[in-house]
């Protein structure tokens, strides 16, 4: 349909007499055509005059009352909503809009920010500290494991060397459940592996002794871990390599020349 055809339909359109399809098409055209929109306005004025052809009638006074009542109720409701909104607005900016209060607001904001930052840093520091402790513990553990591994390797190396011997030490009445193995080769190179020994009191260590007849010769001292394991690498004196009894006592840390404490472990039992 072209513009002129739409234009011709407008007088019928203002009477609401166009059928569905034509009505929709013209409505679409009117929304895009300023000329037809002006034409519509002119025809609407003509059509409106037809209303005066109807017999004028007086409506019931109640209609006016109903209209005004509805409007007043709506106005009251709008007023109430406006006041409610105004109250909200007043309540909120009272502490933020006035210039006098800007500094205190910024001070509070800065203080809050500082506290948050400090708390965050403290948490990071704590976490970092905890992590460092864990790392240190793991490092120590790793170091211990490596030492133990090294001693185990040395123990087996000694044990597997030609002419090597291994003596077993049993727990005395002090610690019946304790035991130890002492591997040593023909050069006197010895490795001790002890189990089941109680942790030594502060200032004390376990010490290895080589006993030949009535002669007791001191070996090195060692400590045990929390599980009661202890390892020691030592050198057996030449005089004790063939027929010595090995014993372990609890002595002052660093070892002594003559045994003073009770025997915890010994061979030949």
């Amino acid at each position, binding site marked *: 349909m072209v513009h002129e055809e739409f234009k011709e339909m407008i007088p019928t359109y203002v009477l609401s007499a166009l059928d569905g399809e034509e009505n929709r098409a013209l409505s679409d055209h009117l929304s895009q055509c300023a000329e037809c929109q002006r034409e519509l306005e002119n025809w609407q004025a003509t059509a409106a005059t037809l209303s005066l052809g109807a017999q004028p009638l*007086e409506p019931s006074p109640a209609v006016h009352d109903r209209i*005004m009542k509805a409007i007043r109720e709506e106005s009251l409701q709008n007023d109430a909503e406006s006041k409610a909104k105004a109250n909200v607005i007043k309540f909120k900016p009272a502490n933020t809009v006035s210039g006098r209060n800007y500094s205190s607001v910024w001070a509070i904001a800065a203080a809050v920010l500082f506290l948050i930052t400090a708390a965050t840093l403290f948490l990071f520091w704590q976490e970092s500290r905890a992590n460092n402790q864990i790392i240190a513990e793991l490092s120590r553990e790793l170091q211990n494991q490596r030492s133990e591994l090294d001693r185990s390797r040395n123990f087996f190396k000694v044990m597997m060397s030609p002419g090597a011997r291994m003596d077993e030490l049993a727990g005395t009445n002090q610690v019946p459940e304790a035991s130890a193995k002492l591997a040593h080769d023909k050069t006197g190179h010895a490795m001790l592996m002890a189990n089941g020994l109680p942790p030594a009191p502060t200032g004390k260590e376990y010490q290895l002794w080589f006993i030949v007849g009535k002669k007791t010769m001191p070996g090195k001292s060692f400590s045990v871990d929390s599980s009661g394991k202890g390892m020691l690498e030592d050198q057996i004196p030449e005089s004790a390599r063939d027929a010595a009894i090995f014993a372990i006592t609890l002595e002052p840390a660093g070892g002594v020349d003559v045994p003073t404490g009770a025997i915890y472990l010994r061979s030949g039992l």
Partner: protein
Amino acid sequence: MQPEEAQIDDVALLKAIAGKDEKAVSQLYDRYRVVLFGLLVRILNNREEAEDVLQELFLQVWHRAGDYDPNRGRPFTWLVTLARSRAIDRLRSVASRERVANESAREVTEEVSDAVADAVRSEQRGIVTSALSQLPEEQQKALVLAYFDGLTQSEIADRLGAPLGTVKTRMRAGMMKLREVLGGKSQSFGFK
């Protein structure tokens, strides 16, 4: 053609209503209630329903007075167009159409009050009825069936037993004749 108390023109009233002036609504209602109610009763053929639509119309005016654009037509045209549009929508609902078919137009005429006292409105009505009477009868019928009874071209063709094309021609010719007869008078209807 000025009513006795029309110191404020219709455009100013609508502007005041847009500014939520309740008194302005009351004034506009007083000016147009008789014309609009007459139109609504003529279309709906039922006073109660016409009163409902009149109430809805003025509440619509209360809400939408800000939409009125003086450059696009007079307040009278705007009000009548809104009123008729509402009435036609209601008329075209099935229930309403059935009820209208069962009611007598004569009964409504008998209920009409003698509110034609306003000389201005009488004069305007006289001009319109005179203009309509100058149209050929078939054109008059087509316009009345469309404007007051809310029938479409197809329905009018069925009602009159005339070809659709003929009805289209009659309606367009009738409107053009009406505009010609009224001349510039249609632009002065209403109060200001």
